[in-house]
């Protein structure tokens, strides 16, 4: 197991967010080869703004008008009981929601001020800007580890970057490089569950999206793998804006800079994580975080 010497301690990052200098994991930054291949994104964070977003399944409104701002280079944790619409909202942000027959979204979703649902906007291009990590690790079974990570580049015919360099960069970024560097050609599904999920994160960051959406990324993982992914999320926010849907309130407390609580399709409250968990404004939030209902 590799341990990254530069892993930031969680407490400080929650407390004062972007105080630490913006950087990818030190191992990458230290490598001049990968540095050259990487466009300078440092400092230009991207934010997503939701204005009165409503998501429907047919006639059933699952998200009932949410206004929310996902701040750049922060982890926003979304919590709430099952069926509260947090996953639906997440899937609306990169327009995966509309893949379900009969599903549609109303309201405005702005990425850096640009409406992603505007007519004429290419949904495929939007998804390259807004990557997604799913509940269960889903590496492509026909592909090797290397091919899995490079899949986005290859499918999108990205030619101006060296694929091998980018694969290494992404795998280092996902904290998986040391574990798999000797077997990059082995099938991706041969890895353990936690490794597979980090492989999927590597696959997502390899195309350098602006925003990463994570839909309960640790719910299928054991505690140790969960810890690794949580550390990883802390590092990734240096470069990406992250939205994390989680079922696990401890996880939200550990990794979220801000936390949003959703209930029955409504956004009840969004605030600094410490405030949500210690002194929430809404009684429903208080009841939920104190375990009165789930």
């Amino acid at each position, binding site marked *: 197991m590799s341990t990254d010497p530069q892993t930031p301690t969680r407490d400080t990052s929650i407390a004062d967010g972007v105080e630490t200098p913006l950087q990818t994991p030190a191992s990458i930054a230290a490598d001049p080869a990968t540095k050259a291949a990487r466009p300078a994104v440092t400092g230009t964070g991207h*934010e997503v703004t939701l204005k009165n977003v409503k998501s429907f399944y047919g006639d059933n409104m699952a998200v009932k008008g949410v206004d929310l701002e996902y*701040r750049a280079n922060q982890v926003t944790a979304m919590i709430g009981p099952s069926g509260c619409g947090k996953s639906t909202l997440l899937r609306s942000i990169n327009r995966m929601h509309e893949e379900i027959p009969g599903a549609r979204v109303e309201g405005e979703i702005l990425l850096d001020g640009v409406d992603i649902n505007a007519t004429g906007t290419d949904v*495929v291009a939007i998804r390259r*800007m807004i990557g997604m990590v799913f509940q269960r690790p889903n590496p*492509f079974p*026909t592909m090797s580890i290397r091919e899995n990570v490079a899949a986005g580049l290859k499918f999108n015919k990205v030619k101006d970057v060296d694929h091998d360099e980018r694969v290494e960069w992404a795998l280092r970024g996902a904290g998986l490089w040391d574990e798999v560097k000797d077997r990059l050609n082995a099938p991706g599904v041969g890895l353990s569950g936690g490794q597979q999920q980090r492989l999927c994160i590597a696959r997502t960051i390899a195309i350098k999206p602006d925003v990463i959406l994570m839909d309960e990324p640790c719910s299928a993982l054991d505690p140790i793998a969960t810890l690794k992914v949580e550390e990883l999320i802390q590092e990734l926010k240096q470069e990406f804006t992250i939205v994390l849907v989680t079922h696990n309130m401890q996880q939200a407390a550990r990794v979220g800079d801000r936390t949003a609580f959703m209930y029955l399709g409504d956004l009840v409250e969004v605030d600094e994580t410490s405030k949500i968990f210690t002194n929430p404004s809404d009684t429903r939030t208080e009841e939920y975080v104190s375990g009165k209902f789930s």
Partner: protein
Amino acid sequence: MESSTVKAPTDAGARLRDHLARTKTGSWLDPWVKGALTALAGLIFVLLAYFLIKLFVEARPVFAAYGVLDFVFKVDWLPSQDTYGAGALVAGTVITSIVALIIGVPVAVATALFVTELAPVKLRGLISGTLELLAAVPSVVYGLWGFLFLAPKIKGIEQWFADTFSFIPFIGGEVSAANYFITGLILAIMIIPIVSAISREVMATVPADQKEAALALGATRWEMIRSTVLPYSRAGIVGGSMLGLGRALGETIAVAILIGGATSGVGDSLFSQGSTLASVIALEFQEATASPEHRAALIGAGLLLFAVTLVINAVARGYISRAESRLVRAEKDAKKAAAASAAGEAPKGPSLMSRVPRPHLPELVTSLSGRKRVDSIARGSVGFLTGVALLPLVALLAFLVIRGGGAISWDFFTTDPTGAAGAVSNANRFLGGDAAASTAGQDLGGIRSAIVGSLEVVGLAAVVVVPIGIAVAVYLVEYGQGTWFGGFVRYLVDVMTGVPSVVFGLFVYISLVVSQVGGVPFAGWKASVALGLLMLPIVINSSLPVLRLVPSALREAALALGVPRWKVILRIVLPTALPGLVTGALLAIARAAGETAPIIFTAGVATALVGDPNGPLNTLPAQIYADVTASSSAQHDRAWGAALTLVVLILLLSLVARLAQRRSRIS
């Protein structure tokens, strides 16, 4: 912190707009791909509509002349006098199918019981594998075996039976070499694998706790089977039997070889000659070219056959899905009960009792030794019937290897059948000529042209149809799910599955051969069209479950990476499903390679090696058919050799299909 995150939105927005404008995603292809796939699916509708309209138009004269009811029930099919009442054919079809069901279903159910409940674990795979082997043998080989081996062997038994039980109506009199009974017997052997396979599947779904509950109440093994397994799987067994019935109704070549071909009336007894709807089409289509009424009558017979098969298959499917939904229902009930008990409600008495299997036998049979005797007798007869099912296979394979192996030599594969032997017998068969030249002592040659022709005809069909079939399946899974059009196409594919192959042959015959499309009447590519029509629904139906098995998580992962839908299908869905798709395609090819009826309608008569598919081509099934119906024993030997070759080719295909399935990455 707040301030640090608020970047100048205009800069970022402008960058994003610029980026979006410059990104080439390839998503413009998506609507085109969807349109093209939808059009291909629509092609199924066009094909089937044209198929039905063409048959109706061509059959109209006969329905107009006799009226539908008279055509179906009047018993006078006399081509020489130009009167056509299909009553005798309908009767022949019904009689042979009933014989097939009476013999085949009990044996098939017994094998299924034996494999799922009684056989030692080691034997189970062996028996079910052997039965699947039986399913892979083409029908012309069954016909060959029945005609040359089984019919002469059991003639004595049939005569004894007819004499002894002559007091029963419809039994007795002189036993003809070709008759209803022997045809039904061969049909029974042919439907056993299907009925057995479906029964096995259904029996495997009987919940183990129900079986254990019966055993724990002190039931013997047979009592457990009677009280839980059989009631539970009844709907599935009925459905499987109906599918077998559908197969028996449409079976052509084996029947044409074995039934004799008498059409003037219903035979006096079970052991007299007759005809079925399918066999009369195969036996008379060639002479019908001269008479439009005759042709219309044959097409009418084909339509009738199609209609009956359609109804039978629909009913069968209804039964099978009922058997499947029963499992779902039971699970739902259990969940409901669990929820009720969790809510503190006491389960109602009668509903709980009805879920417990009723072991009625232990109450009826009082002494344990008596019950044990019943148990061992029942188990013994199930095992015996399983042996009966396997016996014909062993005999068939042994004969194939011995007789066919004797005929095979290097020359057998490298020379063409001589014109005399092949053409004369064919001419005899189809043209009614009496050019039965003696072929004794003449070198008959081998089967090179037949092998090459078969490969050509089947290969051509596969190259065109496999991609189309997979594309339609992709449409149904990726785009058609939940739409009315998808459901409609799905239904049409089911209808197409039920069309007997001889009707497809007839269709190609009237639409391509008679009108001499391409300048020649008979041509290899026309046989490919007929086989292609046959393969299309098989390819679609075998691809559907494989494509559905591709986890939607993979599609979502690719979509979320910013990959257009068409590329997701091409690069993720298809590669993941590839092994299963290969399996389905190979099984369809194997099925088509053994088809005889559609080929003799369309590929014509040829013996020489011809490369050009736009002309008559020889094929293995046609060669076997021609040789088995000839009178010389040398030709019979060649038929055995060709049959062995065909069976080995088909088994090789099935084997490769199995291996491909094993490579599958999705369980």
